[in-house]
């Protein structure tokens, strides 16, 4: 990642900004400042921006749908703020839906992650009946079921208690370390996460 668009405040106003795989970032801002927009643009979901976004020196506007899909399977992991889970499927199936196309984790590895995050007993339950915090943890596990160069975590601890957040954060860091991947967290305020670079929008 080399540059991010410039518009509005801070990062938006900077002439250019690069995200590097070696670092972890915390993008901190109150609601409505464009945290999710920033991630959506870098994930190829939004094209309504001015300026330029380069991914590995390639102009993202030249990246086609097939390549975006491939990148979302192998290079870019995203824990969505809106979770994007299927409520009428079990937590397990939701996770497997992703793992099915990436074949990244074994079922045992998935179960271990669920156990670490204390949601193993709920795996066979429909997502629709889980609490938001539980669902957030399902979404975290799902996002980790793929290889990635960058993990976008969009306010992914907002409904998880401190203890579980810390475990989840450790799990995420471990995965990033293992894959040599960069991490971009967003948050309303600093929750005490230890990151290399903090950005304010």
């Amino acid at each position, binding site marked *: 990642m080399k540059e991010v668009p410039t518009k509005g405040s801070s990062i938006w106003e900077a002439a250019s900004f690069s995200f590097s795989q070696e670092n972890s970032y915390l993008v901190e801002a109150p609601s409505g400042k464009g945290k999710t927009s920033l991630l959506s643009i870098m994930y190829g979901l939004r094209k309504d921006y001015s300026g330029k976004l380069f991914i590995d020196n390639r102009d993202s506007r030249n990246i086609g*749908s097939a390549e975006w899909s*491939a990148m*979302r399977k192998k290079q870019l992991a*995203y824990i969505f703020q809106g979770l*994007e889970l*299927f409520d009428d*499927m079990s937590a397990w*199936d939701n996770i497997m839906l992703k793992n*099915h196309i990436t074949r990244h984790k074994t079922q045992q590895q998935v179960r271990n992650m669920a156990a670490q995050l204390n949601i193993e007993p709920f795996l066979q339950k429909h997502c629709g009946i889980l609490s938001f915090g539980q669902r957030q943890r399902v979404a975290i596990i799902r996002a980790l079921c793929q290889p990635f160069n960058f993990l976008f975590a969009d306010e992914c601890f907002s409904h998880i208690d401190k203890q579980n957040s810390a475990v989840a954060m450790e799990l995420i860091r471990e995965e990033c370390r293992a894959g040599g991947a960069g991490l971009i967290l967003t948050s309303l305020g600093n929750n005490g996460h230890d990151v290399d670079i903090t950005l304010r929008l």
Partner: protein
Amino acid sequence: MKYLFQILWKDQSRWHLLWAVLGTIAGFVLLLTGIHFYENMNKVLRENEDLLDPEYIIVNKEVGIGQTLGLGNGGFSEEEIAEIRQQPFAEQVAPFISNEFPISAYTRSRQFPNFSTELFFEAVPDAFVDVRSDDWGWEAGKDHIPVILPQDYLNLYNFGFSQSQGLPQIPKEMIGMLQFSVVLKGATEKATYPGRISGFSNRINSILVPYDFLTWANEKFGYLEQPRPSRIILVSPDPTDPEIIRFIDEKGYDTIREKLKSSRLNIILKFVLSFLVLIAGIIIGLAFLIFLLSLQLMISRSSEKIRRLNKLGYHHTEISRPYIIVLFTLLFIVTAMALAISAIISGKMAAMAAEWNMEVGASLSGTIYLVSIGLVVVLFVLNTFSIYLGTKKLCKE
């Protein structure tokens, strides 16, 4: 794929798909039985050219008292033939040619009664002859003369003459075995050839020999004055054209009007069949639309889910796959059902036709399988294309 089906197939109403399937089956069955019926009707018509002989019209001049007294020549002049050729209803025109030397024939056979008779031959180009026989034709050195008699002659013999004279009736199939000799008497030379009956014509009421034979024989034996052709055979693309009757009446010519009447049956039959095929086409078109709209409806009902799948890294072609599998399965069912129903109907039709002494094939022809496969491929390709477009559009939004 299991997960995609689980996600995309949920909350879908399957009723409209059922209607699409039923509609397409109905259209297919109509079309396939229509083609089957048409093919078989054509076959029956070809076998029974007497029933419907639309194109060939034989025109002659009415015989007046003048000809009886030897005052005028009854045949067509060259100008008159040229005039007929120019008529829009006359696609092809050929005058009959006849022998320019005396001919007689006799039989010497144990199985058949003996005959001896003076004779005449006429000939028209082979394309105008309705009897299909490998024996028909003439090249120098051929050891016998093939002859075609009018069907009426055989009937006259079998049902009139033979019975009243206590002679045996002769079936059509045995006629080929009848041996007789033909004597051609030229001015100076005379030749005897064996003759063989090649078949019976319903179209041309004359004793026909191959055109090539008669031109050859006229050159070799002919010494009488060449008579003007007394009859003309013409092919008309539309025998129901009232212009034909009008022209014939105006010129004082004559023809067998019954034949012109019966040809309408053929036209009506073809019209009804084309109508059937048209209706079938419309039904298939509508069924195709229902298919298209049903699949689009399914896609748009799942639009949220499709977008979500795309966010998770599923490409729109991957998301389309379950729809394509559903489409393929349904089309497979449609084709199988339509072919099965058509086969049953054609079996029943064959049984019904057998009661009327018509031979109609009970099984479906290769054309029908080809048509159904072709249609299914077209439906499949168009629908697949539309599915791809639909999911792609959602993923782009």
